[in-house]
């Protein structure tokens, strides 16, 4: 099990989701993927996609406009 960290701060739609997808694709079952970004729509969009994929959304945190989403593959 490993921990993948993706930084998409400053990037807008659709880059954050594209990068999240890339990470989830390379991750193995059970891996944790952590995405950090700033684009507000992506903060809602990524959990939406995770839910549809049937993966586990561990947490969504936000501090000073920077959000962090943790997903278990």
């Amino acid at each position, binding site marked *: 099990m490993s921990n993948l960290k993706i930084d998409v701060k400053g990037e807008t*739609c*659709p880059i954050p*989701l*594209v990068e999240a*997808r890339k990470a*989830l*694709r390379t991750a193995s079952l059970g891996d944790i993927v952590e995405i950090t970004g700033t684009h507000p*729509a992506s903060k*809602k*969009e990524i959990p*939406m*996609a995770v839910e*549809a*994929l049937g993966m586990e959304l561990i947490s969504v945190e936000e501090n000073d406009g920077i959000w962090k989403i943790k997903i278990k593959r």
Partner: protein
Amino acid sequence: MLNNYTYLDNASMTRLDERVLEEMQKCFFENYAIPTSESGYSMGIESREILDNSRKIIADTLGTSKQEIIFTSGNTESSNIALKGTLMAWTQRKKRENENNLNTEDKIKNHVITSSIEDFSVLNTSKSLEKLGFQVKFLDVDPDGFIDPEDLKNSITNETIIVSIQHANQEIGTVQDLETIGKICKEKGVLFHTDATHSFTRLPLNINKTPVDLISISAHTIHGPAGIGALYIRKGTPLLKWMDGGFQEFNLRGGTENIPGAVGFAKAIQLVNEDENQRLLKMRDHLIDRILNEVPKTILNGHPTNRTPQNVNITFEYVEGESITLHLDMRGFGVSTGSACFSRSLDPSHVILGIGGNPERAHGSVRLTLGRFNTMEEMDAVADALAQVVENLRKISPLGMK
């Protein structure tokens, strides 16, 4: 993520049919020689027969003879040869006549007519012809994507050499009235080329019914291999060879023949039948009906019935096409969009803009193109997924609709 993937981008490329591969394999391992003359060795003679037979299958489908079919690397090359080859031949002939003072009063003709929604193979060939000094008229289309035959008639001048209008559109599936267009060209005495990449074998096209001088076709849209296409050239059409090399393809295109490709193309043609086209049409209409009825604020791009049996193209207002494609991909569906960032050109679809859409309509457009390996169950599944994805995206849409 790629388990149970439903591929719905068959206008771009199709999955090869195993039966096509089976035929092609023989040309890699059993008869792999280049075609030779009767005085050559046996394997070469057999290769020639195999190539001839493939050519005949293509010719029969179009209602012509195999002497009027040349193999190419695909529809892009076919359309390049069709347009550049005829124009160069014309220009050269006129130059010769002028040099010999045979017809000094006659200016060199330099006019080409095409439509504004052609695929890049014709559109960008036409643009490059403009740079070479030709005058190109890009005909506008109506909101369904049809050119106006009257407009065409009025656009043909004494300077016009060739008209190039596609059979079916690559994005919205609209099928042009080639019979009327062909008759106008024949009456006016100009050449007529059509790009039939997206209609070939899916819709009838016979040169005995439709007066066409040049037709571009390709194998990759009908579950054949990529890298092989053909060009129909009506006997007597002036055409300058511009791929120099050997004397292959009736001395019109140099280069060692792609026999496995030709054999695969021919087999792919034989595997398409009317039942399959009807099945695609039923799936297409079911999918269009479900989306238009179940997802609010949608627009069907292209004509409802006068479209290829495999094409669905819908704009979802207030949503970005690439967001839809991404979310659908994560749910296991591969589709395409006319949105700018998705395309390699970084411009919104010239087709959606051409039918009077604004950039927003292009950005929200999604194209789903069906093929042999799709099922009705997949149509329902993608309709369900689309309804959910679009609803969710609209909730977070920065484009206005909440």
